[in-house]
């Protein structure tokens, strides 16, 4: 087996907030090209963990390496695209067209002094086309459906030409058919563009069969690289008292 570099590597990550241990000795490794899911109950530390990977939160102890570099010395944050939980972030009255939102993805890396240059605009067009929102580019984001908005936010992340994508509860506020199409799309990004993907969810029923690694988190982290053994992974997680939600959803797989 070819050795692939680790894009995300945490060692003994612990986060304590007001004397509550939110995360305890979390060690996780995500290799280039992997398609990973992170599941766990609400309040189990999912968001805390990804915020640390994005350098939005500092761990109480432990280390994080991104693309083989210690997070404190890492500067290429545009290589990690972040798609936030859209229900929490989207203000429908905000004056922004689809194109303006996708262009934000270039704000941190644009070489243009006063405006986006040709390279930026090309990357923005490519991202909109890939996410099938090119024809919507002049529409206001407040006018779009949940599924369309979700694709716009992914296009924004793709516009920065990232190597990895982290999606926080991407299925919130999106109807079922859109969700199925959405997971096909994620798989496509993973296979065709070679994007490393980590998506976070509290709903085990949405996890596709073709993920390469499954993490469960509830203060402690377990990981399991054999997709076939996915269900037994969930069983393991119940040892930690993860959630009855996992058990209840078992039979769907």
């Amino acid at each position, binding site marked *: 087996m070819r050795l692939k570099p680790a894009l995300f590597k945490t060692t003994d990550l612990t986060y304590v907030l007001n004397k509550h241990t939110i995360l305890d000795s979390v060690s996780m490794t995500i290799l280039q090209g992997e398609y990973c899911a992170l599941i766990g109950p609400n309040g189990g530390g999912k968001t805390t963990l990804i915020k640390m990977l*994005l*350098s*939005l939160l500092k761990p109480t102890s432990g280390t994080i390496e991104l693309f083989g570099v210690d997070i404190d010395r890492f*500067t*290429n*944050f*545009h290589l*990690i695209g*972040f798609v*936030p939980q859209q229900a929490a*972030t989207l*203000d429908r*009255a*905000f*004056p*922004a*067209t689809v194109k*303006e*939102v996708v*262009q*934000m*993805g*270039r*704000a*941190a*890396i*644009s070489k243009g*002094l*006063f405006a*986006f240059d040709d390279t930026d605009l090309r990357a923005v067009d490519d991202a909109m086309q890939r996410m099938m929102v090119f024809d919507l580019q*002049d529409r*206001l984001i*407040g006018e779009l459906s949940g599924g369309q908005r979700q694709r716009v936010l992914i296009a924004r992340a793709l516009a*920065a030409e990232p190597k990895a994508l982290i999606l926080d509860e991407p299925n919130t506020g999106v109807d079922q058919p859109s969700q199925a199409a959405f997971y096909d799309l994620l798989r496509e990004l993973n296979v065709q563009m070679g994007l490393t993907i980590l998506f976070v969810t509290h709903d085990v029923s949405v996890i596709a069969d073709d993920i390469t690694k499954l993490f469960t988190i509830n203060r402690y982290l377990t990981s399991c690289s054999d997709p076939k053994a996915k269900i037994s992974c969930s069983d393991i997680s119940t040892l930690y008292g993860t959630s009855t939600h996992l058990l209840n959803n078992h039979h769907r797989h």
Partner: protein
Amino acid sequence: MFEYQFMINAFLAGSIIAILAAISGSFVVLKRYSLLAESLAHSALVGVAIALLTDSSPLVVALIVTVLSAWVIEYLRSFYHIYSDAILAIFLSGSLALAIIIVSLSGSFNSSLFSYLFGSILSIDMTQVWILSGAGVISLALFALFYRELYFIAFDEEVAKSSGIKVVWLNFLLVTITAVIIALSIRIVGTLLIGALMVIPVVSALRFKQSFFKTVLLALLFALGSTLAGLSISYYLSLPSGAAIVACTLIVFIISLVVNRR
């Protein structure tokens, strides 16, 4: 009215202020930070009061006090996690209390203070127009350099930060530019009214539900139109210029509500 130099000065100064207020106001309003302008304007009043007490230049002292207040407000917001509206409320009333105490001590409750509160077209000399032009060019250049990052931050501060944008630094930059604009505006718009010139044209423009680019353009148009109309009204009716300008922005706001009712 253009046969008088002071009116030419007032129109020049007013135009620069309107353009800057609309642009900076666009970011401030979208960040849900509208009260910032109001609070900083009251800090500017503290500067004016200190200047009247110590017989120094109101413009310079107001500039220093306003920028310092902006930094303290932003520092408390970023690092102390106090609700930003609560910080602004504290600064607004606190500054007013302080300003009134200083003014009372100096015994300078007079017409000169009145003009700082509500603006006066007679107060703009050529030196101030030059200072405003200089500050205006620098502010515009900074906005031209950083509007893309500032827009992303206004839309989603956390994702902007995760993409590598220096959010803390840019937030300080925005409040600093805003503070400078406010301090420089107090002679013509007045400390009690400059907040309105920053906020009302933007809120009116937002009613038209356009792209960000067009929204800023509309806000600029509204601010400029209201300022020029307000200055003319101030000249013909002998009203304080700030009050006339803000009354004009209110008319624009009401029209924008009626035109876009749904």
